[in-house]
């Protein structure tokens, strides 16, 4: 079953074309990675798929919902980890999870808050307001906020950036288990080594166009790893 479908997605910002006819499909239970150079359109695509941005053209379906027409339904159904870790400045870590849980109507909320604070070692930050948290701690909090309602589909924009090796490993293990349980992950990342280890399929985007898409082996072809394939594919276009 397709949980993400995009057909001919276009996004223009004035004279700049950020997405130029993107076609994409992701199956249920897949771990899908999106890689591309800076400014290639990764974040724009993720924001359109999660209803944060309206496309200029084309259409998309996420869990059968059109994110351009029903952005709130998409946001309610999925978990989103944004590119910039920006929880509200004046709530404590624990209050932010409470806030997100109440907005998302999470049952047994306190249990869920305690679970994710423990998972990311955020117990010490529980009573600190987010403005005073370190960048990495804020990133962990944004991850916890995206997981708290147990969504079937996760959208993550550079989730490993700012995390220390301990929490990178913990997050990788969690995401592999999550995917193995039949849930879907859509991840934008520059960290190709991680993407190669975690993803079932990847797409490479450059200049707003998908230039390669398939399983890791299909994209890699003769190259020794995904990074070499990425450099070749993007390099050919320069």
């Amino acid at each position: 079953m397709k949980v993400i479908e995009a057909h001919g997605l276009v996004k223009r910002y004035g004279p700049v074309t950020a997405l130029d006819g993107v076609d994409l499909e992701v199956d249920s239970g897949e771990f899908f990675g999106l890689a591309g150079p800076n400014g290639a359109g990764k974040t724009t695509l993720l924001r359109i798929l999660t209803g944060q941005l309206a496309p200029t053209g084309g259409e998309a379906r996420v869990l059968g919902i059109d994110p351009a027409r029903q952005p709130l339904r998409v946001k309610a159904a999925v978990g989103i980890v944004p590119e910039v870790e920006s929880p509200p400045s004046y709530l404590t870590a624990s209050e932010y999870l409470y806030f997100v849980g109440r907005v998302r109507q999470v049952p047994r909320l306190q249990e869920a808050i305690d679970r994710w604070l423990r998972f990311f070692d955020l117990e010490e930050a529980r009573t600190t307001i987010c403005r005073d948290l370190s960048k990495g701690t804020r990133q962990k909090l944004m991850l916890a906020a995206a997981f708290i309602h147990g969504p079937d589909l996760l959208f993550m924009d550079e989730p490993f950036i700012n995390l220390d090796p301990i929490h990178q490993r913990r997050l990788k293990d969690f995401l592999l288990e999550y995917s193995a349980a039949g849930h879907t992950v859509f991840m934008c990342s520059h960290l190709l080594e991680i993407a190669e280890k975690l993803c079932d399929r990847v797409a490479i985007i450059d200049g707003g166009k998908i230039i390669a898409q398939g399983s890791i082996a299909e994209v890699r072809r003769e190259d020794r790893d995904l990074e070499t394939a990425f450099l070749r594919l993007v390099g050919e276009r320069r």
Partner: protein
Amino acid sequence: MSYLVRLMLKEEYRMHSTYSSRRMFLMFPVIVTLFSFAIGVTSQRLLEATPLSEAIMFLHLSAFLYGLGVGAFGFLGAQYLERRHGQRNYVVTMPAILPMSFRRTFLGMYVRDALFYIALVLLPMVIGLTLSVPFTGFRLTSIGFLFLAAIVSFLVGMSLSFLVSTLYMRSRLAFGVAVGAIAAAFAAYGLFHILPIETILPGLAMHYGLPPFAQPGTQALVAGLAGGGLIAACVAGALLLVPDQYEPRSAPAEAEALPGIDARLGIAREYRILLAKEFVDLKRSGTVAKMFFSFVTPLIFLSFTAWFVRNGLRVPVGFNSVFYGAMVGFFGVLLYNWLNNVDAMDYYATLPVSVPTVIRTKLLAFLVLTTGISTAFVVGVSALNNDMRLLWLALPVMFITSVYMVVMTAYLTGLRTNSFLFDPAVLAQFSVLAILPDLGLTILSFTVDRDPVYTVGGIILVLVVLTAATMVLYRGIDGKWGRHEFTE
């Protein structure tokens, strides 16, 4: 330094022009020019009611207050440095990673805003007056002196604000003492008459020593030098107070307040958790105090002006409770603006919450915060003026005008009130929608004793129209802001 100021001016211009468009932004000084031209052309009639010296005093007072508003770099800089603007960042924060000092960028900010706002407001105002010369016969030299003196008043306000707000970065006690001293100076002028206003506003003293009031001489020179000295001293003091290394104030660990407040707000139904968060934000960010002062200060200023017109100028204007009710409603806009400036809202983009829902939450917060204080003010002023007989009318006027003003502002500006009010198209709509009903209510309030039946009927009619307009605008919020995103 000049390259830094040039860069900051470009940054300011680009920031303002993104709120609407470059063309619309450049319309702003054109509108100021036209407005000033209109005032110039009708000045003969205006001066029949208000003597020139008093009109000039109000102009300097306005320039000073405008400068006070512009120059609060201590607050603004702290906000930039703490990155409370979501994904946006500014040149002023660059010393954190470049070999340059915060003093330099703060001075750059001061010079930038002085140039920017003189060019945006004061210069177009002078051009408008100059264009009116064929109709008014104003002397060009007098207009030139007015420009010079108004710049001094504006810069005194800006510099004082710069100093006091940077003082806040170092010590809240010292900040309180400084604010108290400024308030005491104005009280010495307004309440106790022991200090002439020219002593507080050297720009005004300078102007009184120049044509058309007097021939240029020692008085103007001394006042000009005093103004220049005050500006230099305040800026130097402010720069000394800007820290070399900026460290945000660390808040102590907070007890969990959100669940408790959430539990108590059952009446707010689907807005409950969002409203609870607003209250926690307001308390912890210190915005409640800023809101209180920015609401109470104009009310005190208004009461003083009314008192001054009645007792000082002995003009028989019938300021009554209904007038105060209408004015209190008007000032509510300032509070709505504060509610939108507490924190960046990027995180909402990842949650199933729409922009109209957050706007409605802010409106609810506004109602909870202001209803009590507005009512207390109108009742208090009525009691002080022995005017309780009109309270039955003044309170509905206050309540309906407040709700109308804030809903209208929310409809026009969404969650970015400050930014959108720089868009001339929005500003023009706002001016018409705000000033027309308030003017109508003010004029009607003055005639309440002369013709009570017709006046009360007229006021009720205005209130019915405002209520209907409020409902239309409130329903329109969904249509206007439903497709907008938090990160735009």
